[in-house]
């Protein structure tokens, strides 16, 4: 064997990732040594600051692109835009948690560094161009999320949710690595570019590529688990209901976004040449995900479970953008991710405001008559519900519009049709919340609790939802620019 060489490493390309990881590690120690009990909110503020710094560090890298660590990690505008989305998601989730944790008696300083580590895992997924790195990213994200799910420790539902999530997640991890091992056996490489090169080298005969097909299939199953695509979605409502609400909000947008972003890279680079094989499978997955997710939400009276099913449905829509492995599709994907993330974080913020201490009901009845008591809160929630449903002047409408157009132009007209129909069904359960808030008398007295963190979250999310809906052009431009110089 020839002597080993350390490959040239360009740490500049990883600056945002390293900032998040370094800051989180330091914060962990600062929290135990310097910040006294009862002042843990300070840790939260420091964590938000760290995430924002990481976002700023990324700014000068906009015109830089390149890969490092022997092509295992890449920095391009696509990964940078995703990094910014993830940083915003992390910061808003922490803002929501600042008062939620002490109010429910589960305040521990570790919460904030853990969210940062999860964000680091997500950035790793956005930057990874090697199956090993993607595996590490998914695991870094998942393992921290297992802990965060069980964070409301004495609460039994939280522990149960964490255990369910862990068992199924570990399962998915097993499938993921087994799939990667088979792909490695078939192609002799784990890098996405290497796989693409292998596939481009010869015309693929399915009969000779059992290993590769089986491996790719298992990788797809694992991704479906992580992003809760039907039929691998069974864990989602339980886990969302059991976990602390800010964590559920973080999961609903963060995990999905990061895993789908990685899936897009895998499909668009490594397996682009064999689109004919995976397209029908993904199309079927997307179709049943849209249908089952939205139908499942219909019968829910628990708002948290409803949002869980709604997030399943939205994953189906996002999948449309991924399948159209074109620039239009990827643009629509990024745009949808941004719009959905902000809207959903806002909706979860309102749910947290209504969540009473020591209770775990999240009944839709608590929304009844909200308009009379807190008009602004009700208006904000209505805005988020309209956006999730895809009603015109909101971000959700523009996002759905782009993704359906991209799907239609990409030759997936029937899927776009399924999307439109399921959106119409979905409007029912989103608007039901609005009707409750504005038209009905309160069933019982629920005192909404607002505070600085929640206010910030709801205001930022609300303004962004409106802004993206009314003036989408700069955001579309940003999404288009993100796909320039997309590295493989």
């Amino acid at each position, binding site marked *: 064997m020839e002597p080993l060489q350390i490959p040239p490493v360009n740490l500049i390309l990883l600056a945002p990732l390293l900032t998040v990881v370094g800051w989180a590690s330091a914060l962990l120690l600062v929290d135990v040594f310097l910040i006294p009990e009862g002042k843990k909110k300070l840790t939260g503020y420091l964590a938000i600051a760290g995430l924002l710094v990481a976002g700023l560090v990324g700014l000068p890298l906009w015109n830089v692109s390149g890969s490092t660590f022997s092509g295992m990690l890449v920095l391009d505008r696509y990964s940078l835009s995703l990094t910014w989305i993830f940083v915003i998601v992390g910061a808003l989730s922490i803002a929501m948690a600042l008062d939620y944790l002490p109010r429910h008696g589960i305040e521990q300083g570790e919460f904030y560094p853990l969210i940062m580590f999860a964000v680091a895992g997500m950035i790793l997924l956005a930057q990874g161009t090697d199956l090993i790195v993607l*595996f590490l990213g998914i*695991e870094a994200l998942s393992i921290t999320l297992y802990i965060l799910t069980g964070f409301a420790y004495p609460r039994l539902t939280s522990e149960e949710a964490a255990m369910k999530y862990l068992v199924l997640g570990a399962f998915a991890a097993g499938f993921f690595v087994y799939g990667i091992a088979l792909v490695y056996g078939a192609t*002799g490489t784990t890098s996405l570019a290497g796989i693409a090169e292998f596939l481009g080298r010869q015309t693929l005969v399915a009969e000779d590529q059992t290993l590769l097909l089986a491996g790719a299939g298992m990788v797809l199953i694992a991704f479906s688990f992580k992003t809760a695509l039907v039929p691998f979605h069974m864990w989602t409502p339980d886990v969302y209901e059991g976990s602390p609400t800010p964590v559920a909000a973080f999961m609903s947008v963060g995990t999905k976004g990061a895993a789908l972003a990685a899936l897009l890279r895998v499909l668009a680079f490594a397996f682009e040449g064999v689109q004919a094989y995976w397209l029908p499978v993904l199309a079927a997955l997307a179709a049943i995900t849209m249908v089952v997710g939205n139908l499942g939400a219909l019968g829910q009276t628990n708002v948290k479970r409803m949002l869980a099913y709604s997030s399943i449905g939205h994953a189906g829509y996002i999948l449309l953008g991924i399948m159209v492995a074109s620039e239009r599709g990827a643009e629509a994907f990024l745009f949808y991710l941004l719009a959905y993330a902000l809207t959903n974080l806002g909706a979860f913020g309102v749910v947290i405001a209504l969540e009473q201490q020591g209770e775990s009901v999240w009944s839709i009845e608590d929304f009844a008559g909200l308009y009379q008591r807190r008009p602004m809160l009700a208006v904000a929630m209505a805005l988020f519900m309209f956006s999730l449903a895809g009603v015109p002047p909101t971000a959700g409408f523009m996002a759905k519009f782009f993704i359906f157009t991209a799907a239609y132009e990409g030759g997936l007209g029937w899927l776009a049709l399924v999307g439109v129909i399921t959106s119409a069904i979905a409007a029912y359960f989103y608007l039901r919340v609005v009707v409750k808030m504005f038209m009905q008398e309160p069933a019982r007295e629920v005192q909404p609790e607002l505070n600085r963190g929640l206010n910030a979250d709801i205001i930022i999310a609300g303004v962004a939802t409106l802004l993206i809906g009314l003036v989408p052009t700069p955001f579309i431009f940003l999404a288009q620019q993100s796909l320039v110089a997309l590295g493989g």
Partner: protein
Amino acid sequence: MTNAIPLEAVLVVAGALFCIGLFGALSRRNMVGILMGVELMLNAVNINLVAFWRYLEPRFITGQTFALFVIAVAAAEAAVGLAMIIAIYRSWQTVNADSVDSLRG
């Protein structure tokens, strides 16, 4: 030496181990048992990775490196899983997965 045992044989062993792990994880009621099943699945993968490395690409150490990462990740997962089982045992006095069912699924 590598010719003595065909690659297929190693793959079959790994596949069998994976299936045993899968069966264990699905059929066990004890949560520790479930975790052990998952560990078996991951170790089957390691056999695969090392076998592919030895038979197909012995010049590049990708397979070996990956196996190390899988070992490390499996350990982290096991540690978190054990911590969770302790937490559940403290509150429910059981490690039986069936009796932990307060969330309607």
